[in-house]
């Protein structure tokens, strides 16, 4: 049991608790904050996995832009509205399905040939760096890259169109 594994478990525990907070607290603002925290922990996990660039992007884009947007909207729409409470049977069914899903995934991963593919190998020095990411992105994935930019444009226009007040 070395440091790395211990660190991983610690981060994992944090992650899970923050996620549970996201789905369980009443107040949407608290929920949003828990999600921000979860995203931060996720970024740290990314760093552990030799993906510094993606980790930075996670914090900048996800935690920084998307969550801020969430908070804006929460504030815009009156957060005081009380959510009706959950019927018990619904929670039970959901929990059962969730557990089932987990079990199945575990089952999928535990076959003998699964273990083979998962042994980590060592990677080169520049793995996960901006240069490496850029190189793969602009050489192999340039078309999806361009299309993604078009998609963002469409999303902007769509959002503006959907959310504007229709002037009388």
């Amino acid at each position: 049991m070395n440091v790395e594994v211990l660190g991983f478990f610690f981060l994992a525990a944090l992650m899970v608790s923050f996620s549970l907070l996201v789905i369980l607290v009443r107040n949407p603002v608290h929920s949003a904050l828990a999600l921000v925290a979860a995203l931060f922990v996720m970024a740290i996990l990314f760093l552990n996995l030799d993906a510094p660039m993606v980790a930075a992007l996670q914090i900048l884009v996800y935690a920084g832009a998307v969550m801020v947007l969430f908070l804006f909207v929460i504030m815009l729409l009156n957060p005081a509205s009380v959510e009706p409470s959950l019927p018990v049977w619904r929670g039970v069914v959901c929990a059962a399905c969730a557990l089932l899903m987990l079990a199945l995934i575990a089952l999928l991963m535990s076959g003998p040939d699964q273990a083979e593919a998962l042994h980590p190998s060592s990677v080169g020095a520049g793995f996960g760096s901006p240069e490496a990411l850029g190189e793969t992105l602009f050489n192999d994935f340039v078309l999806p890259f361009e299309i993604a930019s078009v998609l963002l444009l469409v999303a902007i226009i769509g959002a503006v169109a959907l959310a504007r007040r229709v002037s009388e």
Partner: protein
Amino acid sequence: MEPGALTISSALLRLIPTAPLLGALLNLAFGPRLGRKPAGLIACAAVAFSFLLSLYCALVPQGGALKDILFPWIESGLLKVEVAFQVDRLSAVMLFVITGIGFLIHVYSLGYMGHDEGMVRYFAYLNLFVFFMVLLVMADNLLLLFVGWEGVGLCSFLLIGFWHHDHANTIAGNKAFIVNRIGDFGFLLGIFLLFWEMSGQGIGSLNFTVLERNAHLIAPARVTLITLLLFAGATGKSAQIPLYVWLPDAMQGPTPVSALIHAATMVTAGVYMTARLHFLFTLAPATLQVIAWIGVLTAIFAATIALVQNDIKRVLAYSTVSQLGYMFVAVGAGAFSAAIFHLFTHAFFKACLFLSAGSVIHGLEGEQDMRQMGGLKPHFPVTYWTYLIAALAISGAPLTAGFFSKDLILWQAFASPKGSFGLWLVGWITAGLTAFYMFRQFFLVFHGESRVTANVRSHIHESPAVMTVPLVLLAAGSILAGWLGAPEYMGGSWWEHWFESFFGVQADTGHAQISAELLFLVLTLAISALGIFVAYVLYVRARQSFKSPGLAPDGAIHRLLLGKYFVDEAYDALLVRPLTGFASWLASTFDPRLIDGAVNGVAGGFWTMSFHWRRLQSGYVQHYLFVFLVGALVVLGYFAIG
């Protein structure tokens, strides 16, 4: 068969049916635009053309045949059928009758139907009929013959119900077609069975020449069955027991139609068919017996009904049934050429009788009940004589056509190896009855005091020349046609020699029996004379207008005969009612409940199913997401476990 000149005429064969077909199509398509008179002339011209061609084709030599193959029709497995025409001596005679007498009747119709609204349609149908009838007799195989057979049935239906605004006419047309259909069912079964047997021998053709060569290969029991089935078809088309009931009702149609279709041509198709397939029938003596006895029983049965009928055309209709019975007696006795001979002479005098009756009806502005006629001799100078000649012919008066043909049949009925005394006896009695009822009709119509109603009396007129000329020609034929078949001792049987190669040597009765033959001749003459005499006494001397003496008027026998032995009523109760009852049960109960129920039930089932399934579309997004989850679980489960 000589090549050269005659091979050219082979190709002309196809023109014989084509001319009336074209006439029919022209009249159907352009008739209304052309006008009534031109349409009629087109029709007459078409038939005249066919007639002239048929005369030319009659030059076919002994034992030979002109053939004209048009195109292959069916080629399926072993079965190979072509549309091809064949004119040999038998078909030459038939063609002569169909187109010759057909032509005269067409000309007559120009006058009879001259004022009718539907004259164009009439001539179109009449031409169409000639086409199908010609097709029937010119076909070189059994299947094409059947096409013509069905076609003439169709035209008969169309023409019987010609004045279709009167419902009674359409009912009569239906009856004719449906009863014929029953016969045709038997006919078809016969054809199928024949083909079955032939294909068992490896032969896939229904061509007559091929059939004749190979008929002996079929087992005797099978041949009997086949011929009985084919004869069933003949009983329908040629109005024998039990399928004769449509012919009297067919008198609802115009009188020229009755003359052409229901006297001279269509009804003789059954006789023609048996003659054409004589090689098959001679292999089945049992069937021939059946045919002979059905023929003779039909003859006397119909004759008794004709004794008391009051409608001028009904008498002639039953007379036709009776005379057709005679033809079948000849067939049953194996005397095929005698049967065709009677067919030939009967065409002349029966057509003459019908057309003369038509002339009277036309002159009396539509009156058909003999009880409203009488003393018409001064008003109908030409018709009177043509009628008299034809009536004498049918009664077998000496030297008329009927004399020779009927006598020949009666003689064969007795003397032929397949004949018998009983057969002759019934036929002989019928001859007497025939003479009686024909002259009963003659005296009732033309002699005695006039019972014509006043307003008709002022309009009585003889028919125009376009009608009387054909009458005269037919009357002449009623006398002269008989000489073709005069017995040997009177000058040579040209007729029998003509058919020798075709039918083979006919039922040979031997020359040593000439005295017996003469005896029977005298007997026949005697009973005919007796019939005429009794009619004269009862209807002229005793001035009994229309009651049948000897049989108490309104007595039981009279009612039985007048009611045609109530056969129609029996058929109705035993067959028609149950069938129509069944049909209405099907329509009202079975179809709506079961079939519609099944179809609607399927639709209803789907509706119910969708009614329950659509509850999945609850409108709640989270429900949909839950369904996603379940689906994902299933897929995961499949990969994890399965």
